[in-house]
């Protein structure tokens, strides 16, 4: 029973991580319907910026964190401006392959600068944040993750419901042409959504880096694990991303714990195929109606 509970808690923790990693991905998809294959590399870039600021520049944690977020915000903006904007209205395959190309570029760049080894952040989270529920131990990072993901969920919820930019974003996602004709600055919305997505990605990258150490290969493979998560939750639902993340996290840890550890990494994709066959738009996704 203890084993089960520990797996349950681990699964939820890992799942929350997947969830917040997926949030940035969903942001981009929601406003510009771009499937971002470079998401894992965005996570890695954030994590490595933070690493550079904290170990090489020796800045205090808080300042380094804020600088990383600002840096990634600008980076996201630039990516949209230089690479994605020329492709507005182009075929899906070009957009997908562009993000794949960007992923290869970023990965090469990170490997060139930092190498493929595992780096770690110095410890800075207080041990007091650790939770103990009976025999189950929750490490401080995981409780920090919980706090961050709930915080961001609420922030995003408010942003999309209340702020004018958020409403513009939803309108663009819903119908680009209609939004354009009603005077929404669609290009600005795209740029902003990429910038925010890169910001969120860098934040999740830092959290992942605290837990697993910073390694390009691990972080970019998380970028691929985002796909089952968002498909499960529906590609355009931010709350769904968190729930999808938790389901995938639970699935992984239980498969790893009870069936076989090697099956762990492939189970999300098997589930993904079945979900796509049964409910193609995910659990919380919007069903698209097509006309010829």
């Amino acid at each position, binding site marked *: 029973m203890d084993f089960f509970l520990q797996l349950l808690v681990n699964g939820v923790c890992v799942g929350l991580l997947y969830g917040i990693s997926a949030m940035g991905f969903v942001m981009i998809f929601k406003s510009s319907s771009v499937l971002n294959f470079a998401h894992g590399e965005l996570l890695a870039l954030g994590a490595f910026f933070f690493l550079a600021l904290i170990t090489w520049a020796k800045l205090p944690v808080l300042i380094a964190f804020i600088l990383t977020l600002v840096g990634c915000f600008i980076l996201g903006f630039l990516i949209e401006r230089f690479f994605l904007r020329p492709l507005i209205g182009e075929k899906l395959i070009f957009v997908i392959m562009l993000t794949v190309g960007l992923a290869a*570029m970023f990965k090469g760049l990170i490997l060139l600068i930092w190498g493929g080894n595992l780096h770690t952040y110095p410890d800075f989270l207080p041990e007091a944040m650790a939770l103990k529920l009976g025999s189950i131990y929750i490490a401080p990072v995981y409780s920090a993750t919980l706090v961050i993901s709930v915080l961001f969920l609420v922030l995003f919820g408010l942003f999309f419901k209340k702020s004018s930019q958020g409403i513009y974003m939803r309108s663009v996602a819903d119908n680009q042409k209609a939004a354009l004709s009603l005077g929404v600055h669609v290009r600005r919305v795209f740029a902003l959504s990429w910038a925010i997505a890169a910001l969120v990605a860098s934040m999740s990258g830092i959290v992942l880096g605290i837990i697993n150490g910073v390694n390009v290969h691990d972080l970019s493979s998380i970028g691929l694990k985002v796909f089952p998560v968002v498909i499960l939750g529906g590609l355009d639902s931010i709350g769904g991303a968190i729930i999808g993340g938790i389901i995938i996290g639970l699935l992984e840890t239980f498969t790893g714990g009870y069936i076989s550890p090697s099956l762990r990494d492939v189970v999300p994709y098997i589930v993904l195929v079945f979900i796509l066959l049964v409910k193609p738009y995910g659990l919380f996704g919007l069903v698209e109606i097509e006309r010829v």
Partner: protein
Amino acid sequence: MRKFSFHPCGNYREDYAQELTIFDTDYGRVCVGLFLVLLFFVIPLTVSPYMLYILNTIGIAAIAAIGLNILIGYTGLISLGHGAFFGVGAYAAAILATRVGLDFYLAIPAAGVITALVGMIIGIPSGRLKGLYLTIATLAGQFIIEYVLIHWDSMTQGTMGITIPPAKIMQWEIAGDKSFFFLIFFCLVLMTWFAVNVMRSKYGRAFIAIRDNDRAAEGMGIPIFKYKLLSFAMSSFYAGFAGALWAYYMVSVTAEPFNLSLSVEFIAMVIIGGMGNIPGAIFGATFITLLNELLRYITGFLMNIGVVTSSGLNMAPLREFVFGLSIVLFILLEPRGIAELWRIIRSNFRLWPFSY
């Protein structure tokens, strides 16, 4: 003997047969003939073994790229699983050759057929999904096949890999770069001929109709699910065939090369070469393979320069960076690929020396 025809100075086509013709002029026919003579009688006898090795790799990649182009360029379905299909073909050939004892000329097509069946299974979601959802489904297919290849120990011998007996016809053994050159390029020419001709038949037109608008195609009476599956089957047959050739050429098969980055490389070949263009796939395969070789050479060269070695910089990731950069630049600057560049160059020469 009929008159040797040149390019007309306008569109004087009178029926569909003229529209469907492969060679507009006899000049093109002669050029292709000359090229084939050069390819089979001059090149293998003159170039170095290393060049032959590169050419062989290009040939194998080109077969797979043509297959993927049928799927992406003509049918408009994006598959991220072709690296895995290539692997299925390689393993199928290896298992057929070692367990069943088939000769290579049976094992390679059989491997293609097995891969086509696997491809159809991966293609089943295309009945309900399209666009990016289908892309994600094929991504899942890539990971699942990769897992099976590594963990189905009793069949694939896991990480140990399988060693393949040499390819033999009667007493004559196909070994070494030169004899493989003939085998690979004979297959490539055959597969190209087949693909070009299928694409101007009823099947090819159905594929193109599905690409341009699948709902409308269905309305016109094309059973789209059947044709989508057919497209998956054809394209994975090509991938499996190429994989089987690769397995024989490399002698031993392990699961590592058949990962997602191989799939990405194949898609890059299709995009850089030119989508919806069969010769384009060959251009793309040539470009990517040469780029890989060139970058390998350059990074090897840079590693040996004193300054770089002493600064502790590892130049190997440069390869990945340039690979990504070339994809991005092609998409942004020439989305129709090398085939389009080639067309522009040719049409500049058409009116030479009186171009305007």
